């Protein structure tokens, strides 16, 4: 990935806030596909640059907790865990980095040093093994690194261990994909569209309960829309 790409990705990650709480498009994920460019080299896609930016932080790439380099590493790592593709929103689309950044400055503040040290160890491992920080590695190389963490084979990790760091990043990626948008991820219900979850529905009818088809009767609802309706 070029430096320019990395910078743009950072910007887009920062943009992942302020998701609407109500999506009129229902569960059809096609609209999201239009926001993707297909990357011929990796077979994966990236969000296009015209996504509306509603940054909550002071700079393009610095978060509430993460600094510039940490943002780049987390954005790249979480995107490999849940990569986006046409019609399949991924971690960047959902604003997962923004979710984790906000969580670390609030509910998960006790994990700040866990992340700080985990990212430092990741950076050391990548520089030693591949002579480059994680965010600048090619996707296939990034996957190798993640596999090494998952299997506990990455050297140099003390605390957190490589496996602890992987497991936490995986779980927090899932939270950022699938938690209600009020928490700063799941932008425009990207995660819920991906899997076909209708969100904070208040009622399912007997007909819904008897259906063997995908649920499309109602649009996806988030907590804010649900509150307005009540």
């Amino acid at each position, binding site marked *: 990935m070029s430096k320019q790409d990395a910078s743009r990705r950072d910007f887009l990650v920062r943009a992942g806030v302020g998701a609407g709480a109500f999506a009129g498009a229902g569960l059809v994920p096609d609209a999201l596909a239009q926001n993707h460019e297909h990357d011929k080299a990796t077979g*994966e896609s990236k969000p296009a640059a015209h996504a509306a930016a509603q940054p909550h932080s002071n700079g393009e790439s610095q978060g509430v907790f993460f600094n510039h380099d940490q943002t780049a590493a987390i954005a790249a790592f979480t995107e*490999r*865990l*849940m*990569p986006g*593709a046409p019609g*399949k929103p*991924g971690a960047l689309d959902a604003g997962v980095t923004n979710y984790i950044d906000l969580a670390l400055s609030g*509910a998960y503040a*006790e994990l700040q040093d866990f992340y700080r040290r985990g990212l430092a160890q990741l950076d050391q491992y990548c520089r030693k093994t591949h002579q480059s920080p994680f965010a600048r590695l090619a996707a296939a190389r990034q*996957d190798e690194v*993640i596999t090494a963490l*998952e299997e506990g084979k990455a050297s140099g990790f003390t605390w957190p261990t490589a496996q602890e760091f992987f497991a936490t990043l*995986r*779980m927090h*990626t*899932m*939270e950022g*994909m*699938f*938690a*209600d948008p009020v*928490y700063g991820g799941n932008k425009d219900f990207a*995660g*819920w569209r*991906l*899997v*076909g*979850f*209708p*969100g*904070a*529905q*208040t*009622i*399912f*009818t*007997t007909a*819904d*309960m*008897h*259906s*063997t*088809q*995908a*649920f499309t009767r109602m649009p996806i609802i988030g*907590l804010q829309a*649900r*509150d307005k309706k009540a």
Partner: protein
Amino acid sequence: MATQKTDVVIVGAGAAGGILAAELGKAGMKVIGLERGPRLTTADFSGADELRYFQRQDLRPNTKRQPITWRPNANARAFPVPVQNYGNQAGGGTVHYGAVSWRFHEDDFRVRSQTMELYGAAAIPQDSSLADWPLTYADLEPFYDRAEYELGVSGKAGNLQGRKIDGGNVFEASRRREYPLPALTVDQAGALFEAGARKLGRHPFSTPRAILSQPYHGRPACTYCGFCQAFGCHVGAKSSILVTALPEADATGNFQLITGAMCYRVNSDNSGRVTGIAYYGPDGSDNTIEADLVILAPFIYDNVRLLLLSKTAKFPNGLANSSGEVGKHLMAHITSRVFAAFDDRYVNVFMGPSAQRHTLDDFNADNFDHSGLDFIRGAQISVGPADLEAGPIGTAASMNPPPGVPRWGAAYRDFLAKYFARYAALVAQTENLPYADQTIDLDPNVRDQWGMPAPRLTYDWRRPNELKRIEFVTQKLEELGHAMGATEVWRSPLGSGAPGAHHEGGTRMGSDPKTSVVNRYGQSWDIPNLFIVGSSTHPTMSGFNPTLTIQALAYMSADAIVKRYQKNPGPLV
């Protein structure tokens, strides 16, 4: 420091404490309830926030401020457990539970005797402290009936006064009348389970749940939103103690609930009686309730901890502990899980009341012949979402992909995208025998936010009887998944030896003061004005969820206190 006087003080306003508060208040006794957490209302439950309630456990004790530690054996170091499965507010665990409401089987109350009769004494593992209850199903049946009707439980009878009824649980013990409410609407996971189980000759039925299928006692029916287990009900259709017994207790005019009250000692005097409770208020104040009758009804860890922390010169081993049995015989359900995925249809398991939706009881208790199986007792087998609630965070956390699919990356994303709405989880909730060395005591190293030693669990379920049985029931789950027509069926890896859901034991009831802590009414053998009510008194645990039995026992204890103890405050047995 404040001191209040009252007739009765109850520690914990949950499944047991709330019912006792209502019943004793109705009888004219002045009752003070002490609740560690807040008192929430239905308006507080937006419900549908999976991150807050499931993932971050907002209705559970905070594992940092209120740690419980676990170690697999006495030689290992204990660490705080990451999730606590009980409540932390008025209403207790009934606020966030899945509301599954079982009556135990007849043989659940006499496991030791029945096992010896059917399979001989050698069938009982030598290290198990297997025991009969000091009461029978028939003794408790009127109070099961009471609980179902007072609280509101939906289900279908399978044994009406001895008459077996297909469509209900034909293995259940005889009941005097139907459930107060018809069974809940069957979701698609339940429908698949029903058809698959029938194909195999089993006896499936809709799980009885304390969730209203129709309006009842002024509360509305369930809306099938699916946010039950781990969540508070956003319409009050879940028959939690918060919307049932506590309003009843309020209406007596004899009940005062003090929230934010952390009890740290049961006070006693040299006459051999307890005199009340000492507790910290939310402001850190040190307060006392003086009461003629003290009822302990918090979760099992706090029962044990309070008794051990309240030791005096007269009670050097802790209160109610002349038997030395306090803290022993900890049991927890062992869970085995199999996933079934469907390519040709949607299941939409996120709809409908969560947790154990449809059940078969064919492999529970002694409902099947154990001859030649080399283990005793069984499991409730049910169907539902991956981790009892069906949101995508819980699914991603708890549903391991099938063999050959990684846990991350494009292939994982595609797996989740394809099957999130096309799978069902089959779950065996397996009975854990009691063992004296599965214990709760005080952690010497870890303290909670009040400076009290954390309850420490020493426990490992991986014993021969349990391991053989879990393999047996897991094979039944796989068989069922295939019979349901699933495209793919795969196992979830078994967890570590840590205790699972529904912790029971620690102050077991019995017939002999030398080998038990309380009598059948939850009354301490040593101290007649001290009662302990809740699942800590269960001598064995069944494969069924414990809450309705806790509630029936609370009604029974209340009945004995009102009719007999009030007139003659001495030993009831």
